[in-house]
């Protein structure tokens, strides 16, 4: 796993240079890949890790991991274009129409790379099917997120399983399928728990950070916000519900950022979110620790999920 980043980056750069012929696309693609590298290529790492965990030994898995990273990158770009988020990213330096082409290019290239892997054809076929189905699940989840119609935690969890966890499951399962030709439901279950825990953690961060993308100011309904709304019942805290319901305007709540943090603490929102996040993480631990797998790979997965 040590030379993982070098090997996968080599695949990524080679494919980007071969298929993005137009200079502006090629330069943006290479800059985008550098961003992925700076984020440690975690999804591709999970693919390689699961391939090894399930007995795979071929170095061709790095190509499959590159396919996974390309898919994630394409969806990340689309997500950022929709949310108008992460404005320092290379794709935001392009006009929206070109950035959309870059995203479609990465998604299509991910299929090209996956189909070019030198694994048995039945495994590639099964993997490509799984890939596409998980992307479709994620697109449905992303749509639910954009609609922002979440009314309760069950709805939130359903959305998160689709939008975020499905891609994490896909990264892990691609490695399992390439190694064994089969899927493993235990892997799907624990990867889903990791994905949910990670999303809850991100949603808490995005609730508190008023300097950047902020879910409260955008009235985005997430698990921490749902709890906060149910717990902020005092007269002094009623402005929180009033803002989410549209009875207050943005400029009326912007001066209250300090007060907001205090309400989050006082209502137990931090405690509740932390317990929910940890519960999903412990569910992941419980599943992976019950599996008969080499402790070396198990421990690496636990480290990756922290």
């Amino acid at each position, binding site marked *: 796993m040590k030379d993982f980043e070098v090997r996968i980056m080599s695949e990524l750069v080679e494919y980007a240079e071969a298929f993005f012929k137009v200079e502006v696309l090629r330069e943006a693609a290479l800059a985008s890949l550098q961003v992925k590298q700076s984020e440690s290529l975690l999804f591709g790492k999970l693919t390689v890790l699961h391939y090894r965990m399930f007995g795979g030994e071929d170095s061709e898995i790095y190509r499959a991991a590159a396919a996974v990273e390309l898919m994630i990158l394409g969806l990340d770009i689309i997500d950022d274009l929709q949310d108008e988020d992460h404005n320092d990213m290379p794709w935001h330096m392009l006009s929206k129409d070109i950035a959309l082409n870059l995203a479609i290019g990465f998604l299509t290239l991910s299929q090209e790379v996956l189909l070019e892997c030198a694994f048995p054809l039945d495994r590639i076929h099964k993997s490509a099917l799984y890939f596409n189905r998980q992307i479709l699940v994620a697109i449905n989840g992303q749509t639910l997120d954009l609609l922002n119609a979440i009314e309760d935690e069950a709805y939130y969890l359903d959305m998160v399983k689709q939008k975020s966890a499905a891609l994490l499951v896909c990264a892990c399962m691609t490695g399992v399928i390439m190694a064994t030709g089969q899927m493993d439901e235990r892997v799907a279950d624990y990867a889903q728990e990791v994905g949910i825990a*990670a*999303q809850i*953690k991100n949603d808490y*961060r995005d609730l508190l950070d008023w300097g950047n993308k902020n879910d409260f100011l955008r009235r985005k309904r997430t698990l921490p916000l749902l709890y906060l709304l149910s717990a902020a019942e005092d007269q002094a805290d009623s402005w929180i519900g009033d803002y989410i319901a549209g009875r207050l305007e943005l400029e009326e709540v912007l001066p209250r950022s300090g007060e907001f943090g205090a309400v989050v603490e006082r209502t137990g929102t931090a*405690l*509740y979110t932390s*317990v929910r996040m940890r519960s999903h993480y412990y569910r992941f631990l419980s599943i992976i620790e019950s599996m008969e797998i080499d402790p070396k790979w198990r421990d690496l997965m636990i480290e990756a999920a922290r």
Partner: protein
Amino acid sequence: MLKEMIRKMVMEPDFMARIQNGQLQLAGISALEQRALMDVMQDRKPDESLRKTVYWC
């Protein structure tokens, strides 16, 4: 149930203290939630790991 328990804990410090001391049973929540709740309370502050970015979401 977890939600109601935490709301009671933040409103009634004595109730929280009794849970921390093991004087009250955590009925109605799953074993994993019990473990998570006790771990978070032992930290005695909001989970710092919550503030870190997870970049795959």
